[in-house]
């Protein structure tokens, strides 16, 4: 078994493959280069990334790389499946179409629906896309990170059971060689050095969305990075972190974010309609709730 640790996409990466073969180790050593390549395509923090060029209108979607197209399509799919709650447009576009009165830059005024829980808003995505590159700015955010984790584990999984932990978004290719699930500790958002629960997860994905780390104060008001597309502001929620286990890490990341944005009550209702997701919800008041499906993965807990 070999493990590699490095930083990429603004977070800590841990990658493990259960093999000592030369081929597997060679692939493992390539993982940082893979993430560098993807970051050069997908990062909005790099002026010369493909995403930045796309946002400036310098390239069109048809001219973009295969990686860009694939992540763009994944983001579109996530946006649709989440009812618009996980959107690549939140940072800039929602302010523009929701709060900017001048619509002449994007042609005809776009339809701005009153977003409500369950209302599909993927038409907004299509309308903005039709307006052309450079008219709005995209940020793939968690979709890019989870997509990258999934890509890496697929490549490594050809050689042996592998796990890619991209800053808490975890993609797993298969059970460990002894037939057991990989050990996943769920971090306590109120005590980062401790964990709330221990999960055992086989092939699939685990993701956590939380407001405990990336938060700040602006004019005396607490802000965090999980934007609610309905308001264009930091999501007002009674949850501090949500962990989801799913068949796929991209799906897990989407579900965790949706539940966090919706809050405890509506989030559990949303999860009840989707048994493919097993979730652990931690409230601001330190209360904890889980979905029935989580029992299959839970090995120990502190509650």
């Amino acid at each position: 078994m070999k493990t590699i640790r490095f930083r990429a996409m603004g977070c800590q990466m841990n990658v493990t493959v259960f093999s000592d073969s030369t081929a597997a180790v060679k692939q493992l050593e390539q993982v940082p280069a893979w993430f560098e390549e993807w970051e050069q395509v997908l990062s909005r923090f790099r002026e010369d990334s493909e995403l930045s060029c796309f946002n400036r209108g310098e390239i069109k979607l048809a001219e973009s790389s295969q990686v860009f197209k694939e992540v763009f399509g994944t983001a579109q799919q996530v946006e649709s499946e989440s009812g618009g709650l996980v959107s690549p447009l939140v940072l800039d576009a929602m302010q523009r179409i929701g709060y900017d009165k001048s619509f002449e830059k994007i042609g005809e005024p776009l339809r701005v629906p009153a977003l409500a829980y369950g209302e599909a808003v993927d038409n907004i995505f299509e309308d903005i896309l039709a307006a052309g590159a450079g008219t709005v700015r995209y940020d793939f955010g968690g979709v890019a990170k989870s997509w990258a984790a999934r890509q890496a584990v697929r490549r490594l999984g050809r050689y042996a059971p592998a796990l890619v932990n991209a800053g808490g978004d975890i993609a797993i290719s298969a059970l460990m060689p002894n037939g057991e699930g990989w050990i996943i500790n769920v971090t306590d958002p109120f005590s980062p050095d401790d964990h709330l629960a221990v999960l055992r997860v086989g092939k699939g994905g685990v993701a956590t969305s939380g407001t405990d780390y990336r938060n700040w104060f602006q004019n005396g008001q607490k802000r965090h990075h999980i934007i609610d597309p309905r308001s264009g502001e930091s999501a007002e929620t009674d949850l501090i972190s949500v962990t989801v286990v799913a068949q796929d890490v991209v799906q897990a990341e989407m579900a965790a974010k949706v539940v966090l944005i919706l809050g405890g009550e509506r989030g559990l209702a949303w999860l009840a309609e989707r048994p493919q997701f097993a979730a652990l919800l931690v409230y601001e008041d330190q209360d904890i709730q889980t979905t029935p499906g989580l029992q299959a993965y839970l090995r120990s807990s502190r509650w």
Partner: protein
Amino acid sequence: MSAKNNIKGVKYLFASASLVTAIGLWNHFSSQANLQEQALQKNEPDPQVSYVQKLEFPPLPTLVPGYEYQTGVLYPQPEQLDYTNDQNSTGQLREALRPTPEAKPNPQVTINQVIIGQPSGGNTLSNPPVNNTGSSK
């Protein structure tokens, strides 16, 4: 005397007949040969005409310069074929619509790269890897 004369006459007749027959056969066969010869002559091409000229094959490309041994003068080079369709083309490659982005030779990545080798076999699974999930840091 008359019997001798008769025998002579018969001999004369036989000789004559043989001669006539021989001449006749000779004429017959010689005429057949003439006919055949005439038939062959009709099908044979005119030896004066060159097939090359008739079918007008283009000359094969010259791989090496021809050398006229008598005079020592090289044959002229064959005309180079022009594949350019555009009459205004300068022969240069068509400019790509978008320049190919250059690969970054040295990725600017801060890597705290550690490869941990763990012993294979039972020890690995008795001490399995542990991963954490939480807010991304």
